[in-house]
């Protein structure tokens, strides 16, 4: 079965609001990376975590390897945040397994 379960699959946010994306892992993962895929298809690095929490501007991400999940929080959403967000997890064998993605639409 899928090792990375990402939710929600789609999300609409009004500008200025926030929400959380989540990835659950069915096996032990060593590290997780979060990406935004923009309209041109480029994967933009957001975070790389081997543990704990990182914050960058309006984004914050947490990785809990013991409880097998990672979250990405977006606050004060802006129109340019629209896109598809992916988590990718690595189980110690250097291969990333990607979630199915969350399609985020920010509405004015």
């Amino acid at each position, binding site marked *: 079965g899928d090792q990375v379960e990402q939710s929600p699959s789609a999300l609409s946010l009004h500008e200025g609001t926030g929400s959380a994306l989540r990835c659950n892992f069915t096996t032990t993962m*060593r*590290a997780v*990376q979060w*990406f935004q895929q923009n309209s*041109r*298809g*480029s*994967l933009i*690095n957001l975070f*790389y975590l081997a543990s704990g929490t990182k914050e960058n501007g309006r984004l914050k991400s947490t990785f809990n390897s013991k409880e097998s999940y990672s979250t990405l929080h977006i606050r004060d959403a802006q129109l340019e945040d629209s896109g598809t967000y*992916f988590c*990718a997890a*690595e189980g*110690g*064998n*250097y*291969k*990333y*397994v*990607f*979630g*199915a*993605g969350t399609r985020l639409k920010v509405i004015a």
Partner: protein
Amino acid sequence: NAGVIQTPRHKVTGKGQEATLWCEPISGHSAVFWYRQTIVQGLEFLTYFRNQAPIDDSGMPKERFSAQMPNQSHSTLKIQSTQPQDSAVYLCASSSRGQDTQYFGPGTRLLVL
């Protein structure tokens, strides 16, 4: 730092033709990865090189697909006798070590007619 460079950005081939995709990793990165993205399957790992040596090709289709890394500055993914189901975005990524942040190129969008 130009990031990971992939060429061509778009490629259209006829069924049965060969397609070669190129990747230039970030200078100084020793690990190179290839992934494929389709609507149905999402993002899938294909193959991995470290210090130019092939480490893992478990994601590569057994027939028609091959990858090489002849020097530290580029890797190629070759698809022989392309089929419509090979249509996808092929993404290359590099990292400074195998287990580290992976930086992705813009991808090559392959369309097989």
